[in-house]
């Protein structure tokens, strides 16, 4: 039973990964992006301050932008997958095939997650070496493990985005507000302490903030094991995502047909 599903998941994963690897330009760009943006704001910082700011601050933003990139890739691709599926009627086939749609969404998210992980590995490595030299490398590799765990609840949010795409039909329109809210409130490019209270609460209740926090704190060596206490709560997103997705799948796609792209 579970074995069959793992097989299906791996099959889709393989196809999707091959697809992504074919587009080397996009992968390269995704790696280039956090570096470029962080250097741009670093340059703005230098201009404003009249002298180069500390590299640790640059590293802070670099990690943030990398996670932002991963977020954009992950949320955009699951929304697009649904749209493409509706457009090409592929989704109808999938619903009539003995494959659990959640397996499909999960493998799509996993694919973009793996892509995101690759981006993080590359960019993070450069950042750590430039900022801390070789001494923090072991910390960096530990942070990779935490990142994997921290990315899993994000899958739940992707399911919600996928569900919203089913109703809203416009993938960009759906993934855009998510990217906007996540970017603003998750402490990616600046500490959330400077945010108004409400935005801070939003940020602290979503997994992205913790992904950035865990990774940074492990690399920089101020990681507190107690902070992992948030993880179980974050995994509620996964369950929540599954439930919402299931609901919309049953109540919209199956009831109204896959018309209406």
């Amino acid at each position, binding site marked *: 039973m579970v074995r069959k599903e793992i097989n299906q998941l791996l099959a889709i994963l393989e196809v999707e990964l091959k697809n992504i690897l074919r587009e080397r330009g996009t992968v390269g760009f995704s790696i280039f992006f956090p570096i470029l943006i962080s250097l741009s704001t670093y340059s*703005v910082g230098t201009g404003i301050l009249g002298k180069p700011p500390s590299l640790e601050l640059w590293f802070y933003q670099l990690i943030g932008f990398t996670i932002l990139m991963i977020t954009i890739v992950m949320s955009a691709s699951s929304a697009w997958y649904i749209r493409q599926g509706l457009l090409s009627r592929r989704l109808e086939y999938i619903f009539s095939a003995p494959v659990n749609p959640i397996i499909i969404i999960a493998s799509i998210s996993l694919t973009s997650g793996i892509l995101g992980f690759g981006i993080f590995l590359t960019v993070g490595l450069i950042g750590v070496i430039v900022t801390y030299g070789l001494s923090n490398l072991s910390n960096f590799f530990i942070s990779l493990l935490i990142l994997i765990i921290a990315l899993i609840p994000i899958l739940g949010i992707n399911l919600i985005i996928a569900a919203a795409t089913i109703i809203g039909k416009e993938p960009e329109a759906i993934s855009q507000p998510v990217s906007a809210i996540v970017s603003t409130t998750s402490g990616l490019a600046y500490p959330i302490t400077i945010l108004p209270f409400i935005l801070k609460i939003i940020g602290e209740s979503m997994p992205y903030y913790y992904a950035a926090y865990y990774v940074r704190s492990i690399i920089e060596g101020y990681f507190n094991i107690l902070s992992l206490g948030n993880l179980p709560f974050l995994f509620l997103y996964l369950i929540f995502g599954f439930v919402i997705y299931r609901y919309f799948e049953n109540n919209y796609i199956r009831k109204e047909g896959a018309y209406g792209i």
Partner: protein
Amino acid sequence: MEYKFKNFIITKISAELGKGLKIYTRNKVWIISDLISTPFWVIFLFLTLIFYAQYLLNNINVVTSLMWGIFLFIFMNSFMWAGNSIVQSVESGIIDNIILTNTSLTIHLLGRNITGMIDILISGVIALLTSSYIFGATLSISEPILFFISLIIAVIFYLLFASVYASLIISLRSPWIVTNVMNFVLPFLSGAIPIQLFQKNVADIIIYSPFYYITGQIASAATGVYYVDPYLMLLISIVFTVIMFFMSRIAANKLIQKFRKEGKISLI
């Protein structure tokens, strides 16, 4: 019955605009999406840019410069997404029919560009209001006439740029990622973020970017702070717009030529 055919560009333009507006007003999801996203993006960009010197949040000049930077970010964003919309035209097979009607790519993209401009209006106003409400930026325009002229030039420039951009990204597998990324890169390279805020040597590089004369000009006119002489800037912006006009024609022809050779515009 006899029908009159005038291959007037005006007829085509009004058909595209009419279609764009109809679809826009029917896409409530997009409108809501913009209304929700914009204030967040504004806050995000503000705080990101000021990250290294948070005390400057109290400096009205800096804050006002940033406000215009964000306004221009939205401005360029809209045109980029209009360019990106070529993807849908190709996927839906509409592009074949467009080619059959002898309509140019730039005119076809107008349909999406018009919605982009409505977005600029709505989101732009939200951005200005958010900036002034949350961060205390001043809403006055320093050189209203130059501001207005440069805004019009920029609209024309980016309308043309949208079709060049469209023909560049169309052969990519995941154009939306590139568009997302470009949206963050361009504001820095275009003087939307006032270049006085950068290191001098970086600023000196940015003034070689054509986008600077288009976008940066608006920022300068709004804030009254010029890095290059205003009239020189105006002249250069007109020259670049003319160049962009020819580039858009070349790009559109190349794209259609490629399409006719390979049987499809490869979204491999």
